[in-house]
């Protein structure tokens, strides 16, 4: 059975060209870039080439790029470096809807002597900028706000925040893991201090990421070891994956237009089709302020895991903000921060598309999800009561 993959915010398919670029480094070209011999040195040159490709995609200088193992490592590196570089300041700021890589780290610091401000979002998932600005103090060391939310798809005004924070002694970091490769990102024009990137979100391999650190930003390494990455991140390079990331960035640059047009069209088609054909469906996230590929819809009176497993029977892959799928017993903190009532949060499904999705796939979902919802609603003790009320 063919998989209809609509969970690209979770991870993406490795582009075949990326795999081709990686293979030699998993076979004959296995040298260590730090070695003296030319066999290793040649590998080092390819790593530099990959660095340049990533730098191009985000308009950074190659020397401002540190390769890491993943977005989470980039986040940890950035937050820890920012905090360490300003030991006298004890106040840090972030949003209430961050990925656990930021959220849990901030919670750790909250328990270890730091005062944390969590900037709220409104019911459409839009950041409360006034709240953020009101809470900036002399004691603020760091502001970390994600560029685009992985669940709702809402894009945050990073350029505006960067403008506000310019010339203040506050490190500004953004987790751009969901942004890079989906829309144009220009770190120079924006004026960021640090930015996290993840390989497997843009059709690159898993196990590699990057951290942009603006030249002049105070920095201390997270992974202390050898002199790799100019002493900023010890550890023998994941060569094949770095080469893969480089290639993925090159391809992403070419795909940005498609993401903005055709993929956006597919997402809109899917979203409109589902909301029109399924009663009591609610959109989570401000419609015109989102990533072009993401659609988060709550189907009332039914539960997310049940929906996902029934879709799974048909090969449709997506994810949910329900409690049962969260690993804890609470529904998604993002939906809760948006004030989505529990009754809707449990029935939320996130579809996230890529350039690989087709109209046929979208139509397949539009055709097959309504009967699934209907079937589950028939089983639900709340649906009849609600339907009666409507009459």
């Amino acid at each position, binding site marked *: 059975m063919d998989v209809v993959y609509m969970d690209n915010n979770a991870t993406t398919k490795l582009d075949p060209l990326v795999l081709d670029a990686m293979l030699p480094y998993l076979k004959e070209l296995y040298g260590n870039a730090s070695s003296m011999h030319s066999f290793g040195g040649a590998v080092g040159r390819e790593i530099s080439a990959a660095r340049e490709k990533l730098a191009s995609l985000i308009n950074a200088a190659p020397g401002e790029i540190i390769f890491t193992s993943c977005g989470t490592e980039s986040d940890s590196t950035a937050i820890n470096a920012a905090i360490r570089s300003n030991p006298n300041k004890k106040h840090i700021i972030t949003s209430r809807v961050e990925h656990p890589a930021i959220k849990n780290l901030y919670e750790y610091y909250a328990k270890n002597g730091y005062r944390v401000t969590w900037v709220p979002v409104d019911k459409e998932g839009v950041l409360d900028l006034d709240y953020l600005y009101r809470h900036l103090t002399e004691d603020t060391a760091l502001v970390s706000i994600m560029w685009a939310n992985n669940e709702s798809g809402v894009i945050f005004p990073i350029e505006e925040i960067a403008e506000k924070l310019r010339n203040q002694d506050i490190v500004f970091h953004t987790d751009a893991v969901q942004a890079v490769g989906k829309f144009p990102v220009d770190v120079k024009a924006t004026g960021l201090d640090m930015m996290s990137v993840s390989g497997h979100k843009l059709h690159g391999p898993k196990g590699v990421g990057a951290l942009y650190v603006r030249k002049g930003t105070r920095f201390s390494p997270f992974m202390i070891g050898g002199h790799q990455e100019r002493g900023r991140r010890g550890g023998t390079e994941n060569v094949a994956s770095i080469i893969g990331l480089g290639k993925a960035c090159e391809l992403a640059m070419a795909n940005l237009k498609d993401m903005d047009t055709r993929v956006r069209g597919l997402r809109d088609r899917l979203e409109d089709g589902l909301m029109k054909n399924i009663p009591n469906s609610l959109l989570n996230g401000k419609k015109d302020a989102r990533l072009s590929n993401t659609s988060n819809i709550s189907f009332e*009176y039914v539960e997310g895991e049940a929906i996902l*497993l029934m879709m799974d029977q048909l090969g449709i892959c997506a994810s949910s903000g329900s409690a049962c799928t969260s690993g804890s*017993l*609470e529904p998604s903190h993002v939906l809760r921060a948006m004030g989505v009532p529990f009754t809707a949060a449990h029935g939320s499904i996130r579809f996230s598309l890529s350039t690989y999705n087709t109209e046929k796939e979208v139509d397949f979902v539009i055709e097959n999800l309504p009967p699934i919802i209907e079937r589950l609603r*028939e*089983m639900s*003790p709340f649906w009849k009561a609600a339907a009666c009320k409507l009459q």
Partner: protein
Amino acid sequence: MWEYTDKVKEHFLNPRNVGEVVDPDGVGEVGSMACGDALKLTFKLDENKKIKEAKFQTFGCASAIASSSAMTEMMIGKTIEEAEKITNDDIADYLGGLPKEKMHCSVLGRDALEKAIYCYRGDPEKKIDGNIVCECFGVTDKEIERAVTENQLRTIEDVTNYVKAGGGCENCHENIQQIIDNVYNKVTQIIPVKKELTNIQKIRLIEETLEREIKPALQKDGGNIELIDVDGDRVLVKLIGTCATCKASQLTLKNYVEARLKEMVAPGLVVEEVK
């Protein structure tokens, strides 16, 4: 990705007895949408007071739906008294097991059945027994205590897996630990501390145990036992009725009579038959 057994998947994809019984004899509603799990169970009895029909409606995940479906299958054909004995472990076993984080779904099934039976018996709406400990999920201390006792739960995580308490803000974790500790302290207190008995105390206790427990048990099978004498730690008895000629009488004497007396009176006792 949850590891679901084939039976769970089967009961999820093809649930049995979905719906509502018309003119039910018992109705049990538990959970809520806020909780993420809700179940409405209805049943009807036949002329012999056996459950002939049981149906469910569930809002919840695959485990919740499968547990509800399994519950109805297990209930049908049983009397109320028999159905009452179904535990949440029985439901989980019927399904070939549930991931531990999903055990609360089987508890949901059991709770709905309980409520439905209460309803049938005309018991007043079961009042919330105890005080709310977990505010996020509305779980009382009595509910937590019951889950710990019935399922031999040891940790806070276990409790969360079975009744959800402690799975939200976690402010109640200390209280949950307290409840767990109390349950296990109580258990150790139940085992009576044996003091040295005087002869007369020993004989009286042996007679009491025989009268209260052992004789009635043997009498059920048409047998009986008579205390002849107590010599130090030797308890001399005579078996009467069917016991006298029963092939298993020696087994009965040792594994039951002697074991009981050892436990209730003194561990050093030995039972001997006098013919």
